[in-house]
């Protein structure tokens, strides 16, 4: 899947979980920069992404998620 498409899908997940779109998708984006992205919504986002892309994260993947860029990379490595 193309990076831009993955990004778009992830962005849709964020909007549906966080219920706003006050963020800009770029590789350096972190949870801290986005309103309402806390421990709970983080796990909800992870779960939704798993459903959307039909993938399963491992705990080890989770530790590698430092920003949007690394999230996109991990997703791409799994599909």
């Amino acid at each position, binding site marked *: 899947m193309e990076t831009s498409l993955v990004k778009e899908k992830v962005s849709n997940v964020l909007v549906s979980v966080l219920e706003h779109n006050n963020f800009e998708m770029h590789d350096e984006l972190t*949870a801290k920069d986005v309103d*309402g*992205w*806390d*421990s*709970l*919504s983080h*796990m*909800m986002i*992870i*779960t939704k992404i798993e459903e959307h892309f039909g993938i399963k*994260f491992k*705990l*080890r993947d*989770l*530790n590698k998620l430092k920003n949007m860029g690394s999230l996109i990379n991990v997703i791409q490595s799994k599909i």
Partner: protein
Amino acid sequence: MVFNSFNFVAFIIPVLLLYWVVFKRTKTLQNIFLLLASVFFYVWADWRFLVLLVTSTLVNFYLGLKIHETEEDRKRSIYLYLGVIFNVGLLLYFKYFNFFYQGFFELLNFFGVESSYNSLTILLPLGISFFTFQTLGYLIDVFNEEVEPTKDFLDFSVFVAFFPKILSGPIERAAGFIPQIQEKRVLTYNVFVDGLRQILWGLFAKIVVAENCAAIANPIFNDYQDKPGSVLLLGTFFYAIQLYADFSGYSNMAIGISKLFGIQLMRNFATPFFSTNISDFWRKWHISLTTWMLDYVFTPLSFILRRHQKKGLIFSIVITFVLVGFWHGANWTFVAYGLLHGIYFIPLVYKGKMNSSEIVAKGKQIPSLKELSKMIALFILIMLTDVFFRANSVSHALDYLKRIFSFSIVDVPNTILNTTTLVTIVLIFFFVFIEWINRERKHDFEINSYNIFIRWGSYILIFLLLLFFGRSAETFIYFQF
């Protein structure tokens, strides 16, 4: 050998001189010397557990390498499990054996099986709760490929045993600590002076604030039955300040002493009482423990339970905080303390404000009325919960709290209305004031940007306060953990 003793001064001055004059040439020389000094320091504190410390260092060093070099996933996991069993096993045996042993027999008796037991005399090795968490975190990081294990046994030994942090933390992470000792350290004036400042502030917090508060709180807690609710309530106030000043004071001294050797330890307290909710508080209180628990307990647990959404999250938070409490010691009081803190998070989970952590009244001089009232409400909640931390048993804590909330809460607290209390309150005001104005800085007493008169004025003032109001202190609250 506590930091605030003449023995320690007699130890640290020659050690610093040798470190920066004789052993400064290579990083290996520096590390050899640091290790020798650390072993000396640990043996001085308690020689009996040196074998344990050495064994733990060897086993964890070996397992770290093994996890890294093994390719097969299953085998890697086995090495990690061995490490978990080893480190947790040490803790369980030395710290919790009697707790579970006693619990087992009480359970038997409860079910009508008559049995009696004698608890074993097990000495608690100094610093065990701190160094086992540090090495366990190291193995998990290596397993998760967050860090590469060091192949240098000397470096690893210094990571485990570095004397400023061996007794009570901060619980360092390999990723932050090890790279620093893999390079030669160079003496820099600014870092050295900043270290001295931090030591001075820690010393003030410990021997002036904590010890004066202890002098008021101890008699109240020791004989609480004959005192009115008002005095008991004030007792919890002084104890809450004592606990904070004691441990943050220790931490500032440990971090400051490290700086003298050109090594930066992690921040352990970030003015936690200037918080407006419980999540914010725990992000600023005993940071090295809470981030440890966040990474190695909370995150995995909430990940496993991610499909249960809010319920899964609440369960993970409560379990994490029960463990935070239990880490402090083998007593139900600590379990209750952790459980209560876990429960305080529940409204935040529903409000979706879990991760809101910010500096209160950022860029302003005074907080808004709303911020102030939230801070005070949170402080009162924490102060009352600290009764569990201080009490010998849960029933003692409950009895204490019950007596606070009685009609005698409006009595005039005669027994503690005296000059000592008044002076202590003024000292607490000064302490809180300095922490407030420095709350946006890297540590509580980072005053390098102030002009020379303010800086030297503060040093002289604090020195005088130490001289006139300092009390001798043989130990720190956190040494027992």
